């Protein structure tokens, strides 16, 4: 009996199969074609760049210097040592950057939590930020994993839907701006991966005794996955190479665990108003599994929500005698520490909840002395000697 293809097609006639989302192999070519038609402006990479491999083989270029830092709400608000460490490492490597005030949140945390927005608004917010970056001549570097994932989705939507481009162009015209997208959408962890050997060359602290587990951030490599960095030399190319590639370059003892693909439990809405779910998932599916299978000294991750969730969820679980109790930080903070950064003045670890002190001790850092130094600086602010600490203070 032959397969009744025509009958099956009729049965499914209400389905309009569009192009598979994974068919969009090289968004750069699509963007440049649209630019040629006058539909949008592409901000080009115009400084020295490093070529890195991505999931399906496309070569992605990461600009090294002259970067526009698209900051993260959650990092700046609740884990400021995350942002500060990114800036500090860039300064130490001698690459210039711009830290803009003409930047809003991508607003995607709220969108994924409450849906109180829409496709046009989300695209317009993204494009407004990209246009602001383009006006300065600095190339955007996205700090937040969700902003990065969301902006990649916005780029795909703008490429696919001419009516959305027209709407966003109209809104931008009202703001006196153009529809601008960058040649590449780049996450800061990609910059750290691309520059990992330069970072390791400036390493002053030995981390070879530090046992590390890595949590890859969902919105980094699950949303528009073709843009994420995969390297045959890291996990055989079967998981994203960012974070792990850096930790390995620094000589850390990177260990694996079975639930690496699971999300952290952040949930966007849940972390703010339904944390029983977040706490349960973060401890039962992530921290406890890591502890049992890999016994890490520290969990490294590369997104705002993941650091927050994995760090903050352990306190309540500890009260229930669960197998938790491991420091959590971004790989940017870990790299900064390895390069000699101050744990409080730069990495701001006093904003974290899970106990990070054992990992500092393994890195040879006297955290009590460091805390006394930070307190002395705070005293200078308190007695009016200075209004703010600056970069000279933290490197002094």
């Amino acid at each position, binding site marked *: 009996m032959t397969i009744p293809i025509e009958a099956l097609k009729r049965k499914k006639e209400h*389905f309009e*199969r569009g192009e598979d*989302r994974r068919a969009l192999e090289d968004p750069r070519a699509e963007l440049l074609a649209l630019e040629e038609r006058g539909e949008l402006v592409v901000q080009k990479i115009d400084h020295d760049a490093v070529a890195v491999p991505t999931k399906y083989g496309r070569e992605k270029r990461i600009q090294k210097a002259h970067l526009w830092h698209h900051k*993260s*709400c*959650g*990092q*700046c*608000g*609740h884990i400021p040592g995350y*942002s*500060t460490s990114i*800036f*500090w490492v860039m300064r130490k490597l001698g690459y210039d950057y711009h*830290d803009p*005030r003409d*930047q*809003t*949140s991508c*607003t995607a*945390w*709220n*969108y994924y*939590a*409450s*849906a*109180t*927005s829409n*496709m046009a608004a989300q695209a*317009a917010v993204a494009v407004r930020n990209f246009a602001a970056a383009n006006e300065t001549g600095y190339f955007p570097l996205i700090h937040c994993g969700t902003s990065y994932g969301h902006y990649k989705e916005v780029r795909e*939507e703008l490429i696919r839907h001419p*009516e*959305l481009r027209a709407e966003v162009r109209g809104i931008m015209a009202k*703001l006196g*701006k153009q529809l601008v997208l960058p040649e590449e959408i780049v996450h800061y962890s990609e910059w750290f991966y691309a520059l990992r050997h330069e970072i390791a060359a400036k390493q002053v602290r030995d981390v070879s005794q530090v046992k590390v587990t890595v949590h890859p951030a*969902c*919105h980094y490599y*699950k*949303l528009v*996955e073709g843009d994420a960095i995969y390297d045959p030399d890291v996990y055989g190319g079967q998981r994203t190479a960012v974070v792990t590639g850096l930790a390995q370059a620094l000589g850390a003892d990177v260990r694996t665990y079975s639930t690496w693909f699971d*999300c952290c439990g*952040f*949930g966007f*809405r849940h972390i*703010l108003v339904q*944390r029983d*779910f977040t706490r*349960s*998932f973060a401890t039962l599916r992530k921290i406890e599994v890591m502890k049992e299978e890999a016994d890490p000294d520290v969990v490294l991750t590369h997104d705002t929500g993941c650091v927050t969730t994995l760090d*903050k969820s352990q*306190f*309540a679980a500890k009260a229930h005698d669960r197998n938790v109790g491991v420091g959590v930080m971004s790989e940017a903070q870990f790299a900064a520490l390895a390069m000699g950064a101050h744990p409080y*003045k730069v990495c701001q670890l006093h904003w*974290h*909840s899970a106990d990070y002190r054992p990992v500092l001790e393994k890195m040879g850092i006297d955290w009590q002395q460091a805390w006394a130094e930070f307190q002395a600086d705070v005293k200078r*602010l*308190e007695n009016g000697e200075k209004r703010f*600490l*600056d*970069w000279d203070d933290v490197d002094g």
Partner: protein
Amino acid sequence: MTTTDASQPDAHYKAPNVAGYADVPLEEKERLFGQVKGDARFSDYLYGCYECGICVAACPSARFYDFSPRRIAQAAAREDVELIYQQMQEDIWECSQCFSCLRCPRGNNPGGIITIMREVAVSNGLASAKEALVGYSRIIYKIMSTGTQVSPDMLQQDAFPDWGPETADVSANLDLWRRALPPETLHTTTTGWAVSEKTLIELYLIWLHTGSLDMIAEVDASLHAILQEVMEERLEDEGIEL
């Protein structure tokens, strides 16, 4: 001998409620699904279903709730408006929006379908949307009015008692610890970073021109009124008439 109580509904009759909320006519369910299907992204998110369950295996919410991304994709594919309506009144708010379900070998995006269903639930003022967003108003206010989502001064122990005593330390030392941050843009306590006035004006214009502000009216009328006043005042100061 059993007797029949005429005042009680027969167990075989359809329940009068859906997910605890009053049911609506079939036509209303079809109208709501029409909005979901009419979203430009819908056809990019749904290709069919192998019923393999890979999305469920990868889903964090499926482990802790009576929730299944596969049921979402299947109901949408079958255009089962009864089930879709029930999901819009319940299931969609359990999704973590992590997009682990993008592991689908068919190329489906159940998380993306849920994003659209949530948007339709909000813009139509469905009861589930109002309930899911209880306690969330201050976040919407913060992001829409300041352009940053979470601010340092939100770290209060009464709001996050489960985050440990460090939260209280941050709150007690907030002003000093923010001034101790070396980047100049981070000396703020009420926003994540310093956002320029011009930037905020542009953001407000985006909310107004895309109908995002109007969406708030459907789920929280008083929040909408406050946001409207804040935005109008700032825009009028800039000489922009609405």
